[in-house]
Each structure stands twice: as structure tokens, then as C-alpha cells.
């Protein structure tokens, strides 16, 4: 009897519905309905780790230029290190698109996409240190031990493509803290982010155990056929059992994954011209992979800009220029491609870091050149595109110098609540009972920012 005969006779003929119900019993990743009709289905989170400076990128401050070299009139706010006088941005700002939103000269390509962006200029969080702020943006809490946003999303919604992980994290090397940022924590382990190192250039080595080094596909097929035959005989002896059936189905899916999963990560399948637009830098490769993964129904893809914390320019803010040069093209290309395919409408693209930087120069003893900026949790900018967010729209404001959010302030919890809302999830109802109470991504706070969504 062939494998397919066995499937149709012993298994009672698994149609798609039957398969889903069997898998659903034990595979928490099968798609689940949202709380209400969603605007978006997927999330791409481009994380510029280290903390990009708002006043040098998307939050122009003429007063900062005017008062350059003088003390901040209202005094400097407490940040991680000692800061001194105000430091103007070395970069020019220019108006882009129909909206005329001003963007720094170091992001010309992203500037040309500004009519597709919501620019939130009033973000804030609690701590001027990398670790708590990285955790806050990723897990909604300053301390280690909460599930990440991607984990909450696959927990709440499952994922559309069972041949790929539902939540994928791409990074050249590791950001500060590393795996805690994509941990499922107290949610089932199946919801943790699947980390892929962008330093590995060979596609087939990107995913663990994705191919057999010692056996050809034909021999493997025969081996799996024998396994299934023995498992079916075992099942017939044991009687109906969803756990056993689900393990049998999982093997079939795994067999298909071996070809489909590497294909999704294989950017050499893209035309030369496309690869050129994304560039050969690791972040660019990550953005292109993110596009291919989202096209295949992965729920959330996160791309970290680089190893450790590249945007952490305490010494010299001029270093933002080469960093932006590596980020600008890939982000703009990703947005253009998603827009062209129509996927941008149903994909939320988040762009930002763990906090911003001070408009005042850093003068702590740790810096060699005094032309840089300290961490700033009091005010920073986030860009959001697609997924039903407004287009060519700025929201909120920092003070005249860009130090602190003062107008229509948006906390990280508010941003999370809004993203979940676009995916059809009520952030107060997406909960998990743990340690005696219900937990959620937004802790006990968060308000959906209605003014930034359509």
C-alpha cells in the first residue's frame, strides 16, 4: 500500500479541514480568528538598534540650530550620562513628497516614501538605558520575563504558513540582550521567535536541521514512508488519538518544509536589479528576506540593523551618516515593493530603535570626541507604514529642542496597543494566565492612538 493510500484509508482521508482540526489540537500555530475584523495581517519590525537620534533624522529643530552651543534654557533632563550645551544637527532637512514632511538629508530614499508614512514624533519610555528600553519596545516591560510582541501575535493569531516559523528574527550577530528580546517567556515555547543569523550567507545553513547531509531526498522519502506505515499500525492498535495523528501529520509538513523554507530565505532567486536596490549590507539582505517571508504568510518578521548597537553614537553624531546610508535604500525598497504588490495595505511596518538621543552634546568622560549624543528616553520618533496607518502624516511633537515629548505623547504601550488593534486584537483581551493573574503585552496600560489610523 502506498503512503497516499494509507492516508486515505486508515486516516479516513484528511481533507484540509480534517488536517487543520487534527493539527489544531496540538499545534498552537494554526490560524485563529482575531477579536474583530483586522486591517492588517502581518508585521515587519525594522529595529535600528542602539538608538537613532530624532533631531538628526525625522524631527527637525530650527531652534536647536539657533541656540547651538548654549545651555538648554529649561535645563537638561536626566539621561544615562552627563550632557552639556545644545548641539545642532550637522545634517540638512528637506521637505519631501506631497505631504512636505521634513526628513534629514541622510535618508533621501526613505524621504521619497514619506507620503506613505506616519511619523510619530512624540514617543517616550521610562529608562535611558539600552536593556530596559529594548525590553520595553519588544516585550512591553522593562524587566526580563515577558513574551515579545511577535510571540503574542502568533499566540493570538497563529500563522498562515505552516511550512515556515510564524515569528522570525533576523540579525547580523546579536542585538544587546539578544534572545530575551524574542522570547516567548511564559507563553508556550512554540511562540518564541526563530532567530536567523544574517552573518550566515549560505541559505541552507540558515535554518537548523533543514536538510539531511547524509541522505538523498528519495531515500528520505522511503524512510518517512516506513515511519508513517509503522506509526499508522501503532495508531490502529491504540485507537483514535489526536496527539499521535498530529505527530504523523507534522512529519509530512516537515518533509515539505525542507524545500519551501530555504526557498523563502534564498534572495539569490530575486532579480539582480532587485538585489542591487536592497544592497549587499546584511541589513539590506535582511529586509529583502523579510519581504519574501511576509509574502509567504509569516506573521511577524523582525530585522535588527546590526550586531550589538550600531546606532549608539555617543562620540560623534556624524557616524549616523554612514549608518543611514546602509539603512535608507533597503527600507525604502522594502516599502516600495510591498506597496507595488499591495501587501503594504495589510502589513504594519514599524521602523525605530529603543529610544532617541539628546539634543545636548554628551560630555561624560567616556567620549573621545565631543560631538555625539547621549541616550534619550524622554522623546524620540517612530515611523509606521502600511496596515491601515495614516499616510504622509505627522503626529505629536517634542519641545523646541527635541529633548522631550510634549504634545500628544505616545508611550510604547500605546504603540503596541495600536499595532495589535490593526491586527484585529484588543490589547486588553489578548491575555495569558500565569502566576496567578492574566498578563498582556501592554501590562496594565496602553491606549489605541485612534488619530494615527485610518
Amino acid at each position, binding site marked *: 500500500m502506498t503512503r497516499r493510500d494509507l492516508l486515505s484509508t486508515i486516516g479516513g482521508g484528511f481533507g484540509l479541514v480534517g488536517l487543520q482540526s487534527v493539527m489544531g489540537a496540538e499545534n498552537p500555530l494554526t490560524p485563529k480568528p482575531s477579536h474583530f475584523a483586522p486591517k492588517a495581517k502581518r508585521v515587519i519590525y525594522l529595529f535600528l538598534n542602539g538608538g537613532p537620534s530624532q533631531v538628526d533624522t525625522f524631527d527637525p529643530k530650527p531652534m536647536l540650530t539657533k541656540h547651538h552651543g548654549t545651555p538648554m534654557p529649561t535645563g537638561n533632563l536626566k539621561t544615562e550620562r552627563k550632557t552639556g550645551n545644545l548641539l545642532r544637527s550637522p545634517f540638512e532637512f528637506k521637505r519631501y513628497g506631497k505631504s512636505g514632511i521634513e526628513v534629514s538629508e541622510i535618508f533621501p530614499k526613505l524621504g521619497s516614501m514619506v507620503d506613505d508614512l506616519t511619523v510619530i514624533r512624540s514617543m517616550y519610555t521610562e529608562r535611558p538605558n539600552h536593556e530596559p528600553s529594548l525590553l520595553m519596545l519588544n516585550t512591553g516591560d522593562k524587566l526580563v520575563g515577558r513574551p515579545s510582541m511577535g510571540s503574542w501575535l502568533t499566540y493570538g493569531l497563529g500563522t498562515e504558513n505552516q511550512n515556515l516559523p510564524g515569528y522570525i528574527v533576523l540579525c547580523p550577530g546579536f542585538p544587546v540582550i539578544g534572545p530575551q528580546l524574542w522570547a516567548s517567556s511564559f507563553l508556550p515555547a512554540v511562540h518564541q521567535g526563530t532567530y536567523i543569523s544574517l552573518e550566515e550567507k549560505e541559505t541552507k545553513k540558515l535554518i537548523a536541521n533543514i536538510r539531511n547531509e547524509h541522505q538523498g531526498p528519495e531515500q528520505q522519502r522511503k524512510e518517512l514512508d516506513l515511519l508513517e506505515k*509503522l506509526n499508522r499500525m501503532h495508531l490502529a492498535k491504540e485507537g483514535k488519538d489526536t496527539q499521535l495523528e498530529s505527530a504523523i501529520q507534522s512529519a509530512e509538513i516537515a518533509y515539505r518544509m525542507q524545500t519551501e523554507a530555504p526557498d523563502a530565505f534564498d534572495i539569490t532567486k530575486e532579480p539582480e536589479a532587485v538585489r542591487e536596490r536592497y544592497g549587499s549590507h546584511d541589513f539590506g539582505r535582511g529586509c529583502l528576506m523579510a519581504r519574501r517571508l511576509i509574502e509567504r504568510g509569516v506573521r511577524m518578521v523582525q530585522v535588527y540593523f546590526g550586531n550589538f548597537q550600531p546606532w549608539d553614537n555617543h562620540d560623534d553624531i556624524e557616524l549616523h551618516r554612514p549608518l543611514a546610508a546602509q539603512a535608507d535604500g533597503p527600507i525604502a525598497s522594502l516599502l516600495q515593493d510591498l506597496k507595488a504588490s499591495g501587501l503594504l495595505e495589510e502589513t504594519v511596518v514599524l521602523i525605530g530603535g529603543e529610544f532617541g538621543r539628546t539634543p545636548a552634546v554628551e560630555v561624560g568622560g567616556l567620549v573621545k570626541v565631543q560631538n555625539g549624543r547621549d541616550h534619550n528616553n524622554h522623546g524620540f520618533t517612530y515611523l509606521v507604514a502600511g496596515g491601515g496607518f495614516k499616510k504622509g502624516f505627522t503626529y505629536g511633537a517634542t519641545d523646541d529642542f527635541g529633548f522631550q515629548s510634549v504634545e500628544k505623547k505616545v508611550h510604547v504601550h500605546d504603540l503596541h496597543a495600536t499595532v495589535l488593534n490593526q491586527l484585529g486584537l484588543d490589547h486588553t483581551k489578548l491575555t495569558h494566565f500565569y502566576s496567578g493573574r492574566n498578563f498582556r503585552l501592554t501590562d496594565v496600560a496602553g491606549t489605541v492612538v485612534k488619530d494615527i489610523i485610518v
Partner: protein
Amino acid sequence: MISDRDKPADVKISIRGDRNNQGEIAPRRFLAILSLENRKPFSKGSGREELAEAIADPSNPLTARVFVNRVWQHHFGVGIVATASNFGQLGERPTHPELLDYLAGTFVQDGWSVKKLHREIMLSDTYQRSTEDSAANAAKDGANQYLWRFNRNRLDVEALRDSILFVSGTLDTKPGEKPLRFDEKNYKRTVYGFISRRKMDGTLALFDFPNPNNTSESRIITNVPLQRLWFMNSDFVEKQAKALADRFSGDPKDRITAMYRAVFHRVPDPTELTSGIQYIEESKDWASYARVLLSSNEFLFTD
């Protein structure tokens, strides 16, 4: 070895776990909810010993109940109280309250002997039941709350890895000394392995090992395709399958029978034997055959 400071001091509450947000001083003493009204601060040094005494006080039934429930949960997959970390208002009620108290009481009387507790549970008729289905019982108690049969449980990652090493004849049974990473040189039991809080081992995470930064009251068990890829393609399973295949020799019938005895503790039935012989004749690949047995549901689940 634990030693106290010369002058132990009370610390302030970190509100919501945040040391930058401190509240009032919290004197060292036992929990209010489990104490009488005149609760006194601990007076001997750090108070660690007094805390231990209060927890293990024979008149405090909670500790023994919680403990025996955890052991029960390890054996049956579900505790008598299904929420092992929550015996309070928000937790589940015990399915067998008298049994829980009996086991807790016996446990204390037997000098808190875990070994005797295991023996008590494992010698019971309930523990020794098979997973065999019964339509009549299923109609009355589909969730098997009353344990008319044994619950079918997937092996947890420790039992899975240890069992694969054991049946392949490669398990190093000497207790571990220094924790070892799970690399190709590590043949010790999984319990002796190195657990990193920063970066968890991939195989452990794949088979639902809990995040070491959180408390975890029980294993969450999943069955996902990535786990099957591990069986199909990992170096670990490849190596152990070879070792299992090389453990036995003789004609195919004897060799297959010996492998069935080692892996499943039974002899193959005629159909299984024929399938095996046929597979070997075609493929000549004993390691591949051994991997099939190690990847099978009969091996992965307890019946």
C-alpha cells in the same frame, strides 16, 4: 554553602519589581496570608532558618500538599490540583482532595521521603493502568479526570534525549560534574547539562524546555514540524541511529527483533517484521531503519 552577613538588613519593596521604584521597608517575616494576626519579625540573623522552619512546620499542610501534587503531576501529566503553582482562589479545585491529603500526610509521616512517595504512587493500580481507550468510560469522563486510564504523554526533552542515548547504548551513566553544553561530546543525562539563561540550547527549546528566566509550573507540550526536522536531519539523531544499528548483528530477522526489544521492550509482530526486512533488503541502510524506530510515536509517547 550559604552564609549570612554579619548584620543582615531589611530591604525596601521594589514596586512591580523595579529597583528604581522603591516602596516601604519590608521587615523579614513570614507571609501575612499564612500567619496569625500577631505576626512577628524574624529575630535570628537573616531569618532564613526561621523561614525554612515555618515552611516545613508539620502543622503547615500547604508545603506537603504542593510537593506531593508536583510529584503526582510528573507521573500523570496533570496534578490532582491541575494548577500546580496556584492552590488559591484563582486555581483549580483538586479532583481528589482526600487523596491529596492522604499523600501529603503520609509524606510528612515518612520523614519527607521522596523515594517512598514515588513508591506509594507507582505501586497503585491507577499508575499501572494502560492508555487503552474505553467508549463507555470516555462517554462519562472524556477528559479522564478520574484516571480510568493512563494519560498518553509525549516524553519531555530530558526523557527523550536520555532514552535515545540509552537505547543506542551510548548513555554515559556517571553523574555529571561540571555542567556540559549539549554538543557532540556530551553523552551524559540531560539533567546534568548546561542551561544558559541568556541563550537556551536549540534542542531543549525545540522540545518545550521552559524559559529559565521564568518559573514554570508544568511543561507545555507541543507537536510541531520543526521537531520532526530534528528527528529527520539532526546530527544527534543521525549519530545515535548509527550507534543503535551497530549495537546488534545477525540476520535481519534477529537484528530487527533485538532492536525492537531495545527500543520498545517487545518483539515485532509479523507485519512489522516483514516491513523491516523488506526495507533493509531494498535500502541496505540499518542506520536509516534505526532512525525510523527512534522517530516513531511508540518511542516518543508513553502508553
